[in-house]
């Protein structure tokens, strides 16, 4: 069979590894042997490396750049093995269509779950090493010497014995004709010269001058612009609209239904389309969720806290019996709200459809899922579709979805031959997210007379992302991703505390609001639940929060090492400066170990000030330490924005938040000093874009408790007063 696949061939196949976090991807199920293989362009040494005659090195990057820096990090890994001149390195994205046509030579395009580097480091480094081997071989052939006699550095190949030198650019064409070696040895990371170094990003300069084009900036000849409104009630439909009411408005070309729930206006400029849409009378069929409120959802989740049935995530011993038998018990209920990604660049896609070809230009975290959506929405076979990935103005998980791409293609299909750029308003973005899932959690601990924990039951009740987006990845109904950071084993996120009788389970309750992967995913609330409750136990039993954690982490040395690092840097053994209070948190997630210590003060009138945060990360291998530090700094903004100010709520079936006045985020003046300790211990590869987010909130919440004696158990903090009596 060919690559002309129907939709059924695309769904079902997914690379979601156990505990992994694929962001809605579809892969063709065609056997590899059957898939067509398109020829490689003549100027590439291999799929990852193109060398131009002027020695410019073009490194191909399959994962998407959205600010997290993996474009630079992946290029560093290839360049390290390639032994090329870093100053001559540029990058390019292969298109998802080319990947499909070339039998997925670049592997997975999905960029989420902090997997960009850790899950492609092996094959991209091999790609660099293979290209280097071929380049050296080409020079050796030309000189008629053994390749082993040649050395290479900074794109220059030297044969010392005969005093000859050449450059990659001169031998690249010959190298491209050689058969690639099947075996290459990768360098020991201890010998890295490009990878592992705090190099500058490759993509900064155009971001400082306005030259950088994002998806929203795209302009094609003859292009029109579209604005859209989807039914504000989840599951609702578009009943009718009165196009005549906006007839004759300047620039308006078309008013059309998109799918069964949205209406769009197409005009010569987006502003004209948007204002015409604002003036368009629309009637919605609000459907079954027309009265849905946050109180309904909270009640639904509350029931799950004591429900009999629940999926087990981690169990050892008999927690229920141990707690029942304990002389002392502690119990607390926490909750974490829906959150919106609110990327700074609103969702957008430009599509051009003809019966012969459908092309889409869009910022996406998952080029292959974007292509699959394009194929489906266009009604055309795969070979007639492609997606051109644009730089993302933020992703955070939202751009792993494809909803806006389907809309754009549907609009373009109604206007054959005309490129149409669909841009969402901020309001559309706030009200049509794939929100961080909502959960509640009841924690019960049994304590013996000495204050030791004899049993712990952590019951999570709430929403499953996997059930909504990747139901094929449920395990007998259980969502493994719910238990991020709470797992008994595996690479993804191991619960570090040794507790003799432990039960962590999940009563799945799925309200009709679509959930999504929100930077940090379920590690966010899991870290808050565990780390704040451990803090509660420490205070209730008169134990030092650091000492208690260290004791429980005795058999989890990597968890303990990051915790120790922050404690040492903040000076935990010394009192905090006058009026300031500290809180700790640690967790493992996305295969990395992270910890944070926050230092805050709370004024008499309840104003919180975060002075200083120390954060430690052990990602195994650190490809670019200064970019990891940037991710750690940014993680505090994202995590604390959600915990302090975030929260998406519903009333009458509608999301109540519409813009940044009702969904406020952290600003520069509130930002604490962040000291990032990057402490790679080697031997494994962990992600860095997300794990630190999870410790941001509990560290600050524990510090707030230390400052005020108030235990904040449901978020966001803005709903609580910290005013001192």
């Amino acid at each position, binding site marked *: 069979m060919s690559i002309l696949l129907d939709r059924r061939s695309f769904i079902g196949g997914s690379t979601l590894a156990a505990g992994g976090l694929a962001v809605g991807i579809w892969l063709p199920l065609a056997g590899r042997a059957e898939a067509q293989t398109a020829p490689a362009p003549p100027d590439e040494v291999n799929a990852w490396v193109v060398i131009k005659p002027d020695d410019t090195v073009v490194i191909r990057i399959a994962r998407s750049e959205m600010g997290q*820096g993996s474009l630079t990090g992946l290029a560093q890994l290839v360049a390290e093995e390639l032994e090329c001149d870093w100053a001559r390195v540029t990058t390019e994205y292969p298109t998802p269509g080319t990947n499909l046509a070339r039998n997925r030579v670049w592997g997975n395009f999905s960029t989420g779950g902090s997997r960009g580097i850790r899950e492609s480091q092996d094959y991209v480094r091999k790609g660099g090493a293979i290209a280097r081997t071929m380049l050296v071989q080409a020079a050796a052939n030309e000189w008629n010497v053994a390749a082993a006699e040649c050395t290479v550095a900074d794109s220059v190949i030297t044969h010392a014995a005969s005093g000859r030198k050449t450059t990659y650019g001169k031998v690249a064409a010959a190298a491209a004709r050689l058969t690639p070696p099947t075996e290459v040895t990768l360098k020991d990371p201890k010998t890295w010269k490009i990878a592992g170094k705090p190099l500058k990003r490759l993509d*900064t300069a155009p971001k400082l001058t*306005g030259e950088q084009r994002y998806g929203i900036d795209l*302009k094609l000849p003859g292009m029109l612009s579209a604005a859209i409104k989807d039914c504000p009630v989840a599951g609702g439909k578009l009943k009718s609209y009165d196009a005549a009411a906006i007839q004759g408005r300047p620039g308006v070309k078309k008013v059309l239904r998109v799918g069964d729930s949205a209406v769009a206006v197409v005009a010569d400029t987006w502003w004209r389309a948007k204002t015409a849409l604002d003036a368009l009378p629309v009637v919605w069929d609000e459907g079954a969720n027309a009265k849905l409120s946050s109180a309904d959802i909270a009640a639904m989740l509350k029931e799950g806290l004591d429900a009999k049935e629940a999926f087990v995530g981690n169990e050892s011993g008999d927690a229920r019996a141990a707690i029942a038998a304990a002389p002392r018990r502690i119990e607390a209920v926490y909750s974490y709200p829906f959150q919106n990604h609110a990327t700074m660049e609103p969702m957008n896609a430009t599509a051009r459809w003809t019966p012969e070809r459908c092309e889409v230009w869009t910022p996406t975290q998952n080029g292959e899922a974007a292509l699959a959506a394009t194929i489906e929405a266009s009604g055309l076979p795969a070979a007639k579709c492609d997606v051109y990935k644009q730089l993302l103005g933020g992703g955070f998980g939202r751009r792993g979805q494809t909803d806006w791409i389907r809309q754009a293609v549907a609009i373009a299909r109604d206007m054959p031959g005309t490129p149409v750029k669909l841009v969402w308003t*901020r309001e559309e973005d706030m009200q049509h997210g794939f929100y961080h899932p909502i959960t509640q959690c009841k924690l019960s601990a049994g304590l013996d007379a000495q204050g030791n924990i004899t049993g712990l039951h952590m019951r999570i009740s709430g929403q499953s992302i996997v059930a909504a987006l990747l139901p094929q990845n449920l395990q007998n109904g259980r969502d493994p991703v719910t238990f991020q950071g709470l797992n008994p084993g595996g690479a993804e996120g191991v619960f570090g505390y040794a507790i003799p009788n432990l039960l962590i389970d999940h009563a799945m309750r799925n309200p009709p609001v679509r959930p999504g992967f929100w930077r940090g995913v379920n590690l966010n609330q899991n870290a808050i639940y565990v780390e704040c409750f451990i803090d509660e136990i420490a205070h209730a039993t008169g134990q030092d929060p650091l000492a208690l954690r260290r004791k429980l982490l005795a058999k989890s040395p990597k968890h303990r090492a990051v915790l120790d690092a922050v404690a040492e840097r903040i000076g935990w053994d010394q009192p905090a400066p006058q009026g300031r209070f500290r809180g700790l948190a640690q967790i493992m997630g996305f295969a990395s170990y992270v910890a944070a210590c926050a230092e805050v003060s709370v004024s008499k009138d309840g104003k919180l000030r975060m002075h200083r945060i120390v954060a430690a990360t052990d990602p195994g291998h650190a490809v670019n330490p*200064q*970019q990891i530090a940037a991710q750690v700094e*940014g993680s505090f903004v994202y995590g604390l924005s959600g915990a302090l100010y975030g929260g998406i709520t519903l009333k009458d079936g509608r999301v109540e938040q519409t813009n940044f006045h009702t969904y406020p985020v952290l600003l520069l003046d509130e930002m604490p000093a962040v000291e990032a300790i990057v402490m790679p211990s080697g031997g494994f590869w962990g992600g860095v874009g997300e794990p630190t987010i999870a410790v941001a909130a509990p560290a600050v919440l524990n510090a707030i408790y230390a400052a005020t004696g108030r235990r904040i158990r449901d978020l966001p903090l803005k709903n609580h007063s910290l005013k001192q009596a």
Partner: protein
Amino acid sequence: MAKLNVNGREREFDAEPDTPLLWVLREQLDLTGTKYGCGVALCGACTVHIDGVPTRSCVRPVSSVGPNEKVVTIEGLSPDGTHALQKAWAALDVPQCGYCQSGMLMAAAALLEAKPVPNDADIDQAINNICRCGTYNRVRAAIKLATTGA
């Protein structure tokens, strides 16, 4: 055709008078460095200078900008990307996704015009742009680097 003075040049455009300056810049004049983030003057991604004053162009009707008022966008901050702030931003690798950075730079540049060596409180007050990637600490450090060399 109405006229605007943008980045030292007189530009003609065709838009309804109540069209925000942002959309004239982006859609009529192809100056897309100025970004749309919220449309209601909350995020600052659309910040430009009008006669040196930092202005959120998403809520400023284009008809309220006189033909003699000087509009400067990120594209006009310096002829070749060598404004002291641009250099400091590059030195500290400030941008992540970069989408908010045009507005950040324009807000910071206006601050330096008013106060060549701003202190932390000045920076706190002047830079209230939203960045979702979380570049705030590097923004602050870059402003200091540009003004004090440290």
